[in-house]
């Protein structure tokens, strides 16, 4: 899959920690201290209770394939067919991603299969969190 012209995210002050994390090979989520609930996408307050007492933590990276489509049309930066997936992290939040190192077929992409993150560098600032079938060598 060519990433030359993949749409590039533009970090904002509230999302900077996430992009710093992926650059360092970590999936950094946020969690509310009073509720103890993790959430995504980033924001400096808890979407469950509205509290501002939140912390950044490094997620385990354990995830499962929650749902997806296999896109068959040409999109700049992608070679069809390719899956656009939503993964569910062990900590609870879901995020959109792509599934790599795996045939892009319904037979290979089985819902609830275990996944692990792969950090794919776009440029000096942006690294994307993609996922691949878990190999069992991560916690």
């Amino acid at each position, binding site marked *: 899959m060519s990433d030359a012209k993949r749409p590039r*995210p*533009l*970090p904002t002050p509230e999302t900077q920690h996430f992009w710093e994390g992926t650059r360092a090979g970590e999936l950094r989520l946020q969690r509310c201290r009073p509720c103890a609930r993790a959430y995504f996408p980033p924001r400096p307050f808890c979407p469950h209770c509205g509290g501002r007492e939140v912390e950044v933590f490094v997620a385990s990276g354990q995830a499962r394939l929650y749902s997806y*489509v296999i896109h068959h049309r040409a999109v700049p930066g992608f070679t069809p067919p*390719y899956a656009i997936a939503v993964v569910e992290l062990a900590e609870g939040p879901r995020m959109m991603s792509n599934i790599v190192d795996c045939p892009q077929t*319904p037979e290979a992409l089985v819902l609830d299969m275990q996944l692990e993150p792969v950090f794919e560098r776009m440029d000096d600032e942006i690294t994307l969190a993609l996922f691949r079938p878990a190999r069992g060598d991560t916690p």
Partner: protein
Amino acid sequence: MKPGAVAIVGAAETTRLGHIPDMSQIQLHADAALNAMQDAGLTPADIDGVAVAGETPIAIAHYLGITPRWVDGTAVGGCSFMLHVRHAAAAISAGLCRTVLITHGESGRSRIGLNRPPPSPASLVGQFELPFGPMGPPSMFTIPVLRYMKTHGLTHEQLAMVAVVQRQWAGRNPRAMFRDPITVSDVLDSTMIAYPFRLLQCCLVTDGGGALILTAAERARDFPQRPVYVLGTGESVETPMISQMEDFTSSRAFRVAGPTAFAAAGITHKDVDHLMIYDAFAHLPIYGLEDLGFVGRGEAGAFIAAGHTAPGGRLPMNTNGGGLSYTHTGMYGMFALQESVRQMRGTAPAQVEGANISVCHGVGGMFAASGTIIMGREPG
């Protein structure tokens, strides 16, 4: 707001639908608005409220020569017009204005004079969804369905039947873009767009528009058309990110908007004679039937496949042929409302005999928003 306090007294679509290469988007709004004013026997001088999505109320009021004392530019996608009806009914009831014009026009196919900016790469969608290669609704709106299929056992054949049944309705409608009957095999053999969705499970892309005129029920008998009464309304929003919807098998916005409208109208499902559920893609009527409570969880696929929403079925749904076969400019909600009005007036091409109550349910964005309007032939 009292059920039936406000009525729809003007309703029309653009004179042509489908491929209209000689009109810009704003002119499609105007063409529909002029047709609706003619339908109601009004001129721009009679309109004192304007609600619009796709263009601004400023642009539409100026273009049509209207001096409003109330405007609504709520733009939450294809169900914006359901929200406009709701807001207009409240505004009229509160005495903020007397006669509201709601317009839609979209050059979805010819793409003349569009003004929808692409999402910012700094937005949450731009940062956390677009980098993974979705290209518009066919590859985003469809993402939750595999989870629904695994949870409830919905089959590919049942999902295909949604398109088959709606084509049966379209075959009864001379204005529908696609009218030839199709089979489950036709659907499952059509071009793959975004697995599990094939071409015939995705909406059309057309040019067109529509407009509605609302006023207080006590004035409604003074207009040339039979009034259609607004019995109940509901609205909600959930998330701009399809990846963040709370439940991939159900829309929270549907679950708020639908029951709110039913409660306001004071009706139950048994009272409903006619149903419109915005069908940009084949799964939407399935989610809508369940989230509005017409069937239980996981039952909608079998319900549709059994013919209950088809011509002759007990719950006629999407009787114009829907976004899958009738027309879909981009914001289809206006066309669903138009069909509910026709059914309540008794003038629909595929008229449901004796229909007195119609539920019209819309979606905006990709499960981002929802609006439900319940209409009646009688004020209550």
